[in-house]
């Protein structure tokens, strides 16, 4: 036993010494981070995300975590530049017939997929049809409006729509609108699914990708990290002013905000999307780091149950809208948060700075409540676990409501509870806090989905049981209108009507902190797709 004990102590001592030895060698600057990789640090980029990306399949991916990855691999027909303009991508030009029903795209020639296959109209058509057949993600972008797709020749793709859809072009710029996948890769990697049907390479494309973009996938660990490497044959390098020398990009999920911050401060990470906005002031003191607290397109909305008395009375909803402490709520979000005018973010189609806004006015609120004959109102308010701002703004609001004799009962529920309760007007709480962000930068991706009376839960996206026939008719008109000026006027009209009905309170655009190392140059934040990174223009 004595012998045994001695050896135990010896091993313990030895391992302690070993550890000490290792740490001292690191202290001398022999960082292990540089030895294993062949590229110098200036050719590597590390992007940290708060959540992992689950799949690389552009037909299925429908998550924000896909934004910094998929557009680097797969390309669509057209793209939306950070300046808000539609620009060519795999299509060089396009025409629309005057009736707004036929869209003809002229495709870029000489483009090759990562596996060497040539890109052509059939490949694009095949990718879109595959997306529609799988029927997940944002496949509605094609499924709903498109009647058929033709390929009159190798370089021409023609969409015929069921009816004119004024937002069709803009919807094609969505980060989730798919992209061209190599038909050869789909064919070669097709297996049978659990029911014995061909899976269109769904299994393989989860962790592999063969697109036409500036970067290829080197390695992918689902929901954890994706390593991209430069595609030297990308058609677009010649068109970029100052092409990026970055050879390797690692997009990694690091859930802990504090860990992201440490990694950025130490220079292990280059761009981070998960550090808390409240850390912005502190990070600003560090001259190695550039911080951008910015308003995202994500809006915090408090939806009323419009079908439940007394909230079905417009005056009550208006009164509650006047009672909300907008300024305090905005301040509680910290740097970057932004007040909302109407329902559209600035810069997006449908934004109208002249629309009226509700400001805090307790007198007016009191008056409206008494007009409606409402006394001693008790309201249930539900916020979703993890979305702490939902609780914070409710607490601020509670104080104002108390002065009006309204009792706000703040409850927390899991996302699942939330979803369950939102299914019917009987179970929906009086007020439910949720977020909304558009799939593509257009009026139809926000107002239609939230306020069309025919899209009510449980099968639709209308989250307040709001219904106004006049609004529905206007939305239909806007959808068909091809004249932009006319369309904008109608959009303002619809928003004004909705604001008057006060079906919900739009609190603020939630801010996000984008923090990067100062040596990272050329990163331009995309105003609509918050996590998109245009790697082809980045330098270190």
């Amino acid at each position: 036993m004595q012998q045994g004990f001695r050896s135990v102590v010896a091993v313990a001592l030895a391992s302690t010494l070993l550890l000490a030895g290792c740490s001292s060698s690191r202290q001398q600057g022999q960082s292990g981070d540089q030895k294993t990789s062949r590229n110098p640090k200036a050719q590597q980029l590390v992007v940290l995300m708060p959540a992992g990306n689950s799949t690389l399949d552009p037909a299925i991916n429908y998550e924000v975590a896909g934004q910094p990855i998929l557009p680097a691999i797969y390309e669509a027909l057209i793209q939306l530049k950070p300046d808000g303009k539609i620009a060519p991508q795999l299509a060089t030009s396009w025409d629309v017939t005057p009736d707004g029903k036929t869209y003809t795209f002229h495709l870029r020639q000489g483009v090759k997929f990562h596996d060497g296959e040539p890109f052509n109209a059939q490949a694009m058509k095949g990718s879109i049809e595959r997306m529609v057949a799988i029927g997940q993600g944002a496949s509605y972008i094609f499924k709903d409006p498109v009647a058929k797709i033709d390929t009159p020749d190798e370089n021409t793709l023609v969409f015929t729509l069921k009816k004119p859809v004024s937002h069709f072009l803009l919807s094609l710029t969505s980060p989730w609108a798919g992209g061209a996948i190599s038909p050869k890769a789909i064919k070669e990697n097709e297996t049978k699914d659990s029911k014995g049907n061909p899976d269109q390479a769904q299994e393989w494309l989860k962790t592999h990708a063969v697109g036409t973009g500036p970067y290829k996938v080197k390695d992918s660990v689902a929901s954890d990290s994706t390593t991209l490497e430069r595609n030297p044959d990308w058609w677009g390098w010649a068109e970029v002013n100052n092409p990026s020398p970055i050879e390797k990009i690692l997009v990694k999920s690091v859930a802990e905000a504090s860990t992201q911050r440490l990694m950025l401060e130490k220079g292990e990470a280059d761009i981070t999307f998960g550090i808390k906005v409240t850390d912005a002031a502190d990070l600003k003191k560090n001259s190695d780091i550039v911080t951008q607290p910015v308003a995202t397109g994500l809006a915090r909305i408090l939806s009323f149950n419009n079908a439940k008395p007394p909230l079905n009375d417009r005056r009550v909803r208006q009164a509650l809208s006047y009672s909300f402490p907008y300024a305090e709520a905005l301040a509680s979000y910290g740097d970057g948060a932004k007040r909302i005018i109407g329902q559209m973010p600035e810069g997006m189609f449908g934004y109208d700075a002249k629309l009226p806004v509700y400001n805090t006015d307790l007198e007016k609120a009191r008056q409206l409540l008494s007009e409606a004959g409402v006394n001693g109102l008790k309201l249930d308010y539900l916020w979703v676990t993890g979305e702490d701002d939902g609780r914070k703004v409710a607490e601020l609001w509670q104080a104002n409501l108390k002065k009006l004799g309204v009792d706000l009962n703040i409850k927390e529920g899991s996302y699942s509870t939330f979803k369950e309760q939102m299914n019917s007007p009987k179970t929906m709480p009086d007020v439910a806090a949720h977020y909304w962000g558009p799939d593509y930068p257009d009026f139809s991706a926000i107002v239609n989905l939230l306020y069309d009376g025919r899209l009510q839960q449980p099968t639709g996206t209308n989250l307040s049981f709001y219904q106004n026939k006049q609004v529905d008719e206007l939305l239909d008109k806007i959808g068909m209108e091809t004249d932009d000026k006319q369309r904008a006027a109608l959009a303002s009209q619809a928003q004004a009507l909705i604001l008057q009905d006060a079906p919900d309170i739009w609190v603020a655009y939630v801010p996000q902190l984008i923090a990067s190392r100062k040596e990272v140059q050329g990163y331009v934040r995309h105003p609509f797709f918050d996590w998109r990174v245009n790697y082809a223009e980045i330098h270190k």
Partner: protein
Amino acid sequence: MLGFILRRIAYSLVGLAGVVIITFFLSHILPGDPAQLAAGGMRARPEAVEAVRKQMGLDQPIPVQFGRYLAGLARGDLGRSIRTKQPVNKDLRRFMPATVELSVVAMLIVALLGIPFGVLAAVRRDGLIDQVIRVVSISAVSLPVFWFALLAQMLFYRQLQWLPVGNRLPLFADAPPGVTGLFLVDSVLAWDWLTFRDALLHLTLPAVVLATGSLAMVTRMVRGSVLDVLNLDYVRTARAKGLTERIVIFKHVLRNALVPVVTMLGLQFGTLLSGAVLAEVVFNWPGIGLYAVQSIVELDYQPILGVTILIGVAYVTINLLVDILYAKLDPRIRFS
């Protein structure tokens, strides 16, 4: 002996079946719709949600889903994760080695330091060393892992810059050729000492943080156990025979004092496995703990079940080994 082991395995299987049934129904009874979550949340179109639901087999009634799950389980198929969209088996194979490596190293720290510290404290009872060990261990037992981990990160990563934080290897570094999945072992097998050093450095903080609580518990336990034995008659006899103190402690005291410690170590391994969940989240350590937490957040049933079963099996196996070891250490204990 064989009969005992077989009987224990049979009991364990019953226990595991209970775990499977309870976890399955608890996770399915919770209100919520994983298909909706997987399809993109509130903004997902109903037809997209239905497509996902059908693909995942979630359109079937719960008893049918349970039947299917059991049938899969019998074939060793643990289902498929909604979040990673991969088979749970494949995910577990990928994430398990990280947790095993972390827990085993933490366990080594606990055993290799806990026992000597405990013995030292007991032998020097009420002396300075004993006082220091007692104060440190009582503080360490009460340290919340989460907080301690953050503190350790601030100190060793940010201030002193001695140790890396998060992940098993430096970013962009290639993993050693996968033989066991344990990077320390694989890198030695590949004779790649740089990777070994990197893996060890990355492991240090999480393992130490994870081990601290258990280390303190074991130290205190060993100290108590040794003190109990020191007061027994046969120890007095041994001393009276004129044996040196060293022989008394190592030959007579330790063997008896270690019996309860072995149980304790076995149980601590279970604690370490569950403690790994927290440590893995804070250190972004890609093990089954992090995998389980992320799955729970997204109502991803199959991985939750898979991890539960895996930890259940590990726990039961360790307990069995402890029981066998028990008899080896203490001849008075017989298998029955």
